[in-house]
């Protein structure tokens, strides 16, 4: 009986890292978008532009979409 501890360990490490990273990035994107909305409301009352928040949010979502695409490619392969 040979237990592949290395494979188990890497499954553990990779799952942990990827999950936390993805969830973190996605949450940043969501928070960025909601900030942008707040900013837009604020601008009506003479606030600042919200471009950086929006760009950042879309960058985050693009990263997540890339991860999903990679996931699909893993399933297909």
């Amino acid at each position, binding site marked *: 009986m040979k237990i592949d501890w290395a494979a188990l360990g890497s499954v553990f490490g990779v799952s942990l890292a990827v999950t936390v990273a993805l969830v973190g990035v996605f949450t940043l994107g*969501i928070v960025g978008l909601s900030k942008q909305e707040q900013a837009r409301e604020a601008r009506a009352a003479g606030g600042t532009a919200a471009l950086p928040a929006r760009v950042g949010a879309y960058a985050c979502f693009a990263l997540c979409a890339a991860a999903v695409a990679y996931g699909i490619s893993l399933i297909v392969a």
Partner: protein
Amino acid sequence: MEHITLLLGIVIVTALVFDFTNGFHDTANAMATTISTGALKPKTAVAMSAVLNLVGAFLSVEVAKTISGGIINEDGLKTEVIFAALVGAILWNLLTWLVGLPSSSSHALFGGLIGAAVMSMGWSSVNGGTVVTKVLLPAVAAPLVAGIAATLATRLTYKISSRADEKATSKGYRAGQIASAGLVSLAHGTNDAQKTMGIITLALITGGVLNPGANPPMWVIVSAGVAIALGTYLGGWRIIRTMGKGLTELAPPQGFAAQTSAATAILTSSHIGFSLSTTQVCSGAVMGAGLGRKGGVVRWSTATRMFVAWGLTLPAAGLVGAGAELLTKQGTWGIATTAALLIGGSAVIWSLSRRQPVDHTNVTDDKIGTPGADAEPAGVVTTAIAAVTPPPAGPVAATATPSEDTDATGTTDVRMTISPASAASATATADAARPATV
């Protein structure tokens, strides 16, 4: 196709039925949290999962070359042994569905195979070491891997989003959750529909219809994909309920973290080659997400029942598989009896489930397992079945309508119809109480 014997035909149909219960049983993995957090309506969720399962079945051509992945010696595996194994796996899947517990369909199949193979060819046909590395160890590892990842991810996402408006973020969480649930469904269709294709192909090869090494014919791929999608669409609402509400209460951020960690763990494990059970990964992720929120609670009594079911999956499906093989060995009448018992057993389980139906209308209701609801199914199920199931069916919805409660004559009918089937499983239990120590 014209050379298909009756036995082969039965095996193919049974394999498709197993595929169906597999989809039915595992809808919860992808969709339980999506439904309970309200990201998708129940019917929409199962429809999406069914479509993705079907797509997944066609995505990859890498069909499983072995049924058991080396757990049993498949040289000279007789068609009837495959049949007996499927009977064990189907009955265990239905039984765990009745009590609403998520358990691994693959492990049920492995259990059935082990039982049937031992009965047919003796203990030497089972590779004990592989049982440990492919079933026991992953069963411990899967919930830990996905659970720890989900806990940390939940903490992180709550920390990051703490200053943002909850209403604005919950829409985003839902979208993210749907995406990861879709990935889980797709992966499930690819892996599990292929398992059935592998079984049917192997049966066709043993039956001499296909040449060894042949690829599955198109009708096998289509029927396996359709069977799993149909099962998924009908939805194992009882299990969805347990995973989505019974284990813990999930808010959108938690659902998102749980589903993402499940999708990641499943894809990572199948890519790196240390395969983990989808069911166990998802259950672990849900519990982890429950623990990750401040003040979050996991209902450990439900979790314990689930762990017990995981532990029992292999021996219980094995016992039924062994009993079925004992019968099928007797020849044609044995095979016919086994088929009749399978149909009868399934009918009994289904009729029991009608006593307290859980469907898309009440799957997210708040009331879970009032004491009355707990006691009732346990009182009906005979001791023989109780011996192979975890105690009371807690997570069953307590939403039985008055008309069902007052159905006293119906109750006695159920009690009567259950006796033949439970007698059979009692025999199986008595026969081979020892193999439980596999």
